[in-house]
């Protein structure tokens, strides 16, 4: 199991947990909700950077020879990205902590609030699909991580041969 895969797994788990926490502003309070949202957008950038080769690879051959599943996954990821941007944008437009922190003020409009909750609901549905599409990868990673490490069997005959040689 490569180091990058472990990084991906733990980053994704952390992002997923943070997303669930951030999706409950009544639990966290507005300040944590907003700063966690900003941190989540940074985590998404790192997530994209870690999967950059896949993104570039699929984009370059999207309309030629890509399996249907891969194409679906590609458009699903674009939808996730777009809904994430919508959440961040509408969140910033109704922000009471982050935007004022930078000395800015934006016109208050309730339609941004409606868009914020709508895009959050869309993101949760898309996230369910995203997790389902990658479920095999996730379970395989955990299986490999917690599987007992077996010593390579190839070394055993060689050792026994050496011992026999030493005895004779």
């Amino acid at each position, binding site marked *: 199991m490569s180091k990058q895969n472990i990084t991906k797994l733990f980053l994704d788990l952390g992002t997923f947990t943070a997303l669930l926490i951030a999706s*409950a*502003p*009544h*639990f966290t309070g507005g300040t944590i909700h907003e700063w966690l949202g900003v941190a989540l957008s940074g985590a998404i950038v790192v997530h994209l*950077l870690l999967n950059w080769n896949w993104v570039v690879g699929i984009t370059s051959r999207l309309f030629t020879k890509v399996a249907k599943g891969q194409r679906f996954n590609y458009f699903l990821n674009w939808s996730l990205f777009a809904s994430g941007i919508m959440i961040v*944008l509408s969140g910033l437009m109704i922000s009471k902590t982050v935007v004022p922190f930078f000395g800015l003020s934006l016109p208050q*409009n*309730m339609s941004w609030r409606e868009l914020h909750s709508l895009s959050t609901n869309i993101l*949760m549905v898309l996230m369910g699909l995203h997790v389902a599409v990658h479920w095999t990868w996730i379970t395989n990673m955990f299986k490999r991580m917690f599987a007992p490490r077996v010593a390579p069997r190839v070394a055993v005959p060689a050792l026994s041969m050496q011992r026999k040689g030493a005895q004779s």
Partner: protein
Amino acid sequence: MKTIFNILVILVVAVLVGGLFYGVATATSSGASQSSMSERPADDQFSPRDREGAGGIQFPADSVKNLAIISIIGVICLNAIKWLDRKKSTVKVAQ
């Protein structure tokens, strides 16, 4: 250097998509009548439920709800994928 370029690409795409959304959202809201409830008075706060520290630590109901949504959608999608795979394999065997 390559990573910085990749980050710039992501940010540029994000700004473009965000700008598109902003344009659509503002055009839609300005097209609607101003007397609608979309405009919020300056002194108005969010509903009492949204206020911080209203009642101490609360149960993270929204998180649980969202986790349930993700789980249900995920299970449905996983079963659909499995069903499609089974269907494909039976078609192959029949051929």
